[in-house]
């Protein structure tokens, strides 16, 4: 990319050139500043949500790990962490399997009412969460899933499926149908063809979709409050309760940990995706 202005740029273009950079900077600032503020605050030695004069003076005495210690020793937080870790991966596996199959099915040319089916499947992403949550509450109560582990897993899977469908559908657009025909002509049955030809090639879409599904479940608070019971109290739910009832900066420590986990996951998945794209010869090197 060329970052220099061409010599023939007019005054208007010059002004826009700098204004554009200022606007971009502001957007990044508004997106990232709230998250960045949390990180130093979580090391507060006091039980406050504000920077103490000591912290602003960079006095080492004003910083501590006490909120992190609290997170790792408090049984409430530990139970919430266990719940989140038990719910999110299972919900992700469900979302990924169902979402991938749905995307492949919807990419076939002979499927009737494709648009309608697609709209229904991705509706959890569009319908306000509180509506979905309330609906699920009443529905799951009737069939005995409300307040159960599987109830929360199913609800989160439903929220994650749209992400998987969208990313996998996008990958399938570039998928060459003659590859499955070639595999069949070479003697591979449809199941072998799926796992050995189609799946490896659409893996990048499946992985990104899975990541979004995981984060959706891991960060979700509204649906779990409706569908879950005290036994399924997840991290976000515990944070929400913490904010309402005790305003403990432990929340900030948890938030920092979640941010770090998210960044870590994104990085790992992006590296995996690049490797897979390289393998299927999409980009050189």
């Amino acid at each position, binding site marked *: 990319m060329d970052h220099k202005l061409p010599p023939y740029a007019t005054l208007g273009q010059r002004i826009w050139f700098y204004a554009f950079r200022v606007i971009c900077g502001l957007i990044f600032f508004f997106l990232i500043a709230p998250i960045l503020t949390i990180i130093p605050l979580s090391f507060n030695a006091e039980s406050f949500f504000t920077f103490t004069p000591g912290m602003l003076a960079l006095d080492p005495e004003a910083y501590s790990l006490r909120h992190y210690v609290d997170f790792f020793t408090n049984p409430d937080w530990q139970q919430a962490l266990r719940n989140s870790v038990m719910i999110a991966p299972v919900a992700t596996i469900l979302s990924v399997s169902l979402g991938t199959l749905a995307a492949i099915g919807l990419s076939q040319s002979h499927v009737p009412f494709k648009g309608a089916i697609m709209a229904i499947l991705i509706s959890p992403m569009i319908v306000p969460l509180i509506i979905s949550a309330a609906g699920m509450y009443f529905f799951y109560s009737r069939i005995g899933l409300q307040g159960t582990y599987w109830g929360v897993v199913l609800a989160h899977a439903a929220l994650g499926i749209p992400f998987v469908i969208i990313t996998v559908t996008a990958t399938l657009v570039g998928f060459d149908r003659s590859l499955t*025909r070639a595999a069949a002509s070479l003697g*591979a049955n449809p199941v072998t063809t799926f796992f050995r030809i189609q799946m490896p090639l659409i893996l990048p879409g499946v992985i990104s979709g899975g990541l979004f599904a995981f984060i959706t479940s891991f960060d979700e608070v509204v649906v779990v409050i409706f569908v879950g019971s005290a036994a399924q109290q997840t991290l976000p739910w515990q944070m929400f309760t913490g904010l309402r009832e005790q305003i403990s900066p432990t929340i900030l420590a948890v938030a920092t940990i979640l941010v770090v986990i998210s960044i870590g996951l994104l990085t790992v998945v992006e590296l995996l995706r690049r490797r897979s794209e390289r393998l299927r010869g999409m980009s050189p090197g």
Partner: protein
Amino acid sequence: MGLTSNAQDAFVTFDRVQKSYDGETLVVKDLNLQIGKGEFLTMLGPSGSGKTTCLMMLAGFETATHGEITLDGRPINNIPPHKRGIGMVFQNYALFPHMTVAENLSFPLEVRKIGKSDREAKIKRALDMVQMGSFAGRRPSQLSGGQQQRIALARALVFEPELVLMDEPLGALDKQLRETLQFEITNLAHELGITVVYVTHDQTEALTMSDRVAVFDDGRIQQLDAPDTLYEEPKNSFVAQFIGENNTLTGVVSKMKGATCEVRLDDGEIIDAVPVNVSQVGERTQVSIRPERVEYNPERLTEGAHTIHAEVLEFIYMGDIYRTRLRVAGHDTFVMKTRNAPDQRRLTPGEKIEIGWRPQDCRALDA
């Protein structure tokens, strides 16, 4: 070519096969075809003529709406593609991009549960066959189009199928590479004794590679013959126009004389022709003559043959041949190709000449 087949010893048969995608229009209408074992048969035709649909029905990717297809005496209508054991080469190569060349070739052997050492031997043999032995570790994206098609060919042959289908395999390659590969594919097919069904819209390819050519148009086989018969004796005006260059004059049959007939052209001139699918005096006809069978040197004309007046419009020196465009019987696009022989005279535009041909080279076809 001696490979003509009757229904008993045919390797592949299409028996009254029809195909419709929408239940109304037939893409393939009443197809009957027998392909002998070891034969190289080409399906040639313009796009939309039904040739690819026929190939796809044979491969199992499309189902016939009516009729039956048999392979080695067995009906295959109800056999899924992966159990037919037919090799296939696609126009866009269809190599698996996430596998190396060796893994691509290994795939059909693995799904057939062939042991590792056997697999390696077969892969090596197949790669050597297409002169790609040193490319086993490459990925398809690192190969050129011609190399990819060679690998695709090796992959279709590595599991030793008796029948190989090729769907315009050379369509995406440049002319020179196409000619080399045409030659290699034909040689390979005959060496291995495999049966090949080849689809193309390139008539040169069809003529140079095949034992027999089926010319498709409008969902039907218009003519099924050896390349030389097809070129010399087209059975209708579609085939005459589609294969090679042809001059067409229109007129009315004025006299039937047994093996030949007289045709009165639209401007009143009379010529001799062989009646192919005209039988009655008064019928309208399209008379077709190959440009290289037209003669203007009176010494080379058959005695007693009708000659006709022509005006030279354009004379092009092409080295080995002269290509002359003439006005004949009111048509401005009549082409004559003459060999650059020592005794041949060069013509100049505007010159008035007499041209003629042997009556058997001039075919009166349907109008």
